[in-house]
């Protein structure tokens, strides 16, 4: 049970990081502002450690 939960945390971290970095890079070519927002969201997510 704990293993499955642990895998979900890993999956969520991977998904959020990939989404933010991919989104940031994809939009930066046109406009840097959305990339900043993706970076800010990733910073926010990393605060999960203090949940």
């Amino acid at each position, binding site marked *: 049970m704990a293993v499955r939960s642990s895998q979900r945390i890993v999956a*969520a971290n991977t998904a959020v990081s990939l989404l933010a970095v991919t989104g940031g890079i994809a939009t930066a070519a046109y406009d*840097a502002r959305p990339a*900043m927002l*993706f*970076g*800010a*969201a990733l910073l*926010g997510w990393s*605060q999960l450690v203090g949940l």
Partner: protein
Amino acid sequence: MTPLGKVAGAQRTWLTHVIAYTLAGALSSMLVGGTLGAVGGRLLPPDAWRLGIPAAVLLGVLAVARDMGWIQVPLAQPRRQTRDVWTYRYGPLAASALWGFDLGLVVTTWFTFAGVLVLVASAFLLEDVLLGSLLLLFYWLGRAASVWVGPLFLEDAGQTPWMLDEINNRHRTFRSINFLGVGLLLSALLLYRGL
């Protein structure tokens, strides 16, 4: 709030609390971001970003080096956290909103990582109320997202202490994500200013 999401019949209560938490945090983070952008726009001289952006990059490098444990630098930050007692004093719904509002203010509670200072500096250097608001709003949405997905990490409400331990044991992973966030934010800031 998270355990409520796994208690049969309490999902609606959980949802109400998390919505209150998220909305209150969105409001306060936008207020702080907008204020930083407005103050930056009012105080900074023209072309201040030419010095400001390299200073933000330096701050980012120092923040990451500190978080990685490479350097020992005391961090100017408030030594407080949100108050558990609010739930007994004001009830769980109001407490959820207060926790969200407090955490959304960003600078009133203990920083998990120093990278958050780069966020604050960026909002100030952007000299733009709307962009400053959006920057801190997205930071908040990233932060609040963990509360929304928290119940998905659990098989049942009894696992909450385990989940908190598991998350704290993954400190290095979250530190790396924070590093990635600082890098992405600063790269985009440099790109935005055409540096």
